[in-house]
């Protein structure tokens, strides 16, 4: 039985410009200890998916329209805040994109890092402080017993992200949701942070949901990948399959867009057009207007994620119908 099972999650935002369907019928599952990547461009709904699970969607304007997210038999989408608070920070925790803003500037690191322990484990302050210092040492902060009393502004960005990781993992959660944890950091620090997350994951056996738009990170880091587009999962497969055998034109195009894999002389490949307005989604496949393999039926038929091979699902209608056999060639062409 999977650790976390999300089914038919639909989250939308009711704005003046209409109902923005940020997450539209998303289902996936997460096994204990595995790393699941969620990739997609900005606005594809990858963060909103995780925010919905964590109960972080501001309501209003946000609304979870339907679906379930079962964790240990508890539906995180429907349980009370009190129940959710017993899980958040203790059994499921999260690290955020920008370490510069995700720590409270007015509180010492010690206060913030001790909070989950004081709340969830009812430790005394002295015990919690000891654990906080150990947690900081475990994420590679030197002089932790002294630095634990610093304020966030006295740390660099990479150090703050380490603090965030220490804070998220201090209660030894079963799931860690990492929402683009390296996007705001510079490249050298990115690698350190990724290594750190992987090391801590191995030590603690935590399952990780890794949200990113960086396919390189996905390749190095994740066991399985969900590629999201316009609030839906376009393709879901093991990492090796995602790269070796893309089954959705969007995934294939994404991989062609990686600058490092393109020849230096040629013009950089980009996906033409813009992601659709989530308040006015086109009929049929939402990627169809930008898709180089689109057929007339793509803008008519509703898409549905369907497993083509064991563990490899796509929402591309034409592949499901067998009209396209493989997208491999289009990746390697350039």
């Amino acid at each position: 039985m999977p650790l976390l099972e999300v089914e038919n999650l639909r989250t939308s935002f009711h704005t003046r410009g209409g109902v923005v369907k940020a997450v539209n019928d998303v289902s996936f599952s997460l096994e204990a200890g595995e790393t699941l990547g969620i990739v997609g461009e900005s606005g594809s709904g990858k963060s909103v998916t995780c925010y919905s699970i964590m109960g972080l969607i501001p309501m209003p304007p946000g609304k979870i329209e339907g679906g379930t997210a079962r964790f240990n038999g508890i539906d995180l989408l429907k349980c009370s805040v009190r129940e959710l608070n017993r899980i958040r920070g203790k059994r499921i925790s999260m690290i955020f994109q920008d370490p510069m803003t995700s720590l409270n500037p007015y509180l010492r690191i010690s206060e913030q890092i001790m909070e989950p322990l004081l709340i969830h484990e009812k430790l005394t302050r002295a015990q919690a402080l000891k654990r906080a210092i150990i947690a900081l040492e475990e994420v590679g902060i030197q002089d932790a017993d002294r630095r634990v009393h610093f304020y966030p502004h006295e740390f660099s960005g990479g150090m703050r992200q380490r603090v965030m990781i220490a804070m998220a993992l201090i209660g030894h959660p079963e799931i860690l949701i990492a929402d683009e944890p390296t996007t705001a950091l510079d490249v050298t620090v990115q690698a350190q942070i990724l290594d750190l997350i992987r090391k801590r994951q191995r030590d603690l056996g935590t399952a990780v949901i890794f949200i990113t738009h960086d396919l390189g990170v996905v390749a190095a880091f994740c066991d399985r990948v969900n590629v999201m587009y316009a609030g839906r999962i376009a393709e879901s497969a093991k990492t090796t399959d995602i790269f070796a055998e893309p089954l959705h034109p969007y995934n294939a195009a994404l991989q062609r867009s990686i600058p490092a894999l393109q020849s230096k002389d040629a013009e950089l490949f980009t996906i033409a057009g813009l992601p659709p307005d989530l308040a006015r989604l086109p009929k049929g496949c939402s990627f169809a207007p930008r898709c180089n393999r689109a057929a007339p039926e793509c803008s008519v038929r509703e898409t549905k994620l369907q497993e083509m091979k064991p563990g490899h699902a796509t929402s591309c209608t034409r592949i499901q119908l067998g009209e396209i056999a493989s997208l491999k060639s289009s990746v390697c062409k350039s």
Partner: protein
Amino acid sequence: MTADAPEITSVAIPPSLDEAQKGTSLWKDAWRRLRRNKLAIIGLINFVLITLFCLIGPYFVPYQSGEQARSLQSCRPMEPIYARIQERKGKIVRTDFIPESKILDENAFITVSKEQRDAGLAQLKRGEPLKAGRYTYQISARKHLLGTDALGRDLLVRMMHGGRISIGVGLAATAVSILIGVVYGAVSGYLGGNLDIVMMRIVDILYTIPFTIFVILLMVFLPPSIFLLFMAIGAVEWLTMARIVRGEISALKHREFVEAAVSLGLGRLHIIFRHLIPNVLGSVIVYSTLTVPQVMLLEAVLSFLGLGVQPPMSSWGVLIDDGAKTIETTPWLLLFPAAIFSLTLFSLNFLGDGLRDALDPKSSKD
């Protein structure tokens, strides 16, 4: 200390950290910036001195606040005062005090020739007693530094006692307004939604009630007391505070550190009081230093209208009111209370401005 957590005994915690190691907080930075603002520091020192003057001053003045001297009405500041001693059979039966301005009205001087009068005055001024009929006149050690009012009460000591009330009302009503305003604003701002709308419309409605009419109504239906004054002022002053805090909190609540706090499973109240309110304390402090003078002004206005502090208690507002009534004959009764009041307001305003600059995180970090 370590016995109950055996798995982590290997890490030693240093017994104490000295200040330098603890890192500089935003508050320390703010204090450093404030110290560089001369005007604000002068304001701070000035306010402290005025407060001390009102608190401990009365112990150094030999008069009581309500003490009246019938014969010493409306003395000028520092006016020499003469004692008129009435003796019967070698015993002093009565001592009255006559200010210099009234001494020539005394029988002893009215009934004699001009030369005798001048000689007598000169004798008194030298400190020698002057006998006239059954009275002995003598220069007195009594001095009223700032003069006396129409009832012969010492202005200096009344100003000190009045200051206690004025500053006390200012601080207490501000404290009340902070307490209500911050909690109300923070709850409204953080919880948001319909609750926020309802709570803020209540504030809007309360804003529309004209303050003086509100106070007059209170005074009509309830016996006037200083407690009522606190209530009336507190009931009005928290509105702005609530708006300020609500605005800041609703901007802060979408910041990532609040999301992080939510994702750690912290309760709503915990987030409001532990994470959000410390973040708005800067503006709260700044606004408070501007509220104190506002409240003092309100109290003065009410007292000026006869709705505030009731006699025999005094406040600066009462004193200014009294002084204004007799501005032609005894201008010092207006001048001194108005001066100390203005000085206090200026000090607090400068301090408030300085604090606003010092606590602004956008100001340079040097």
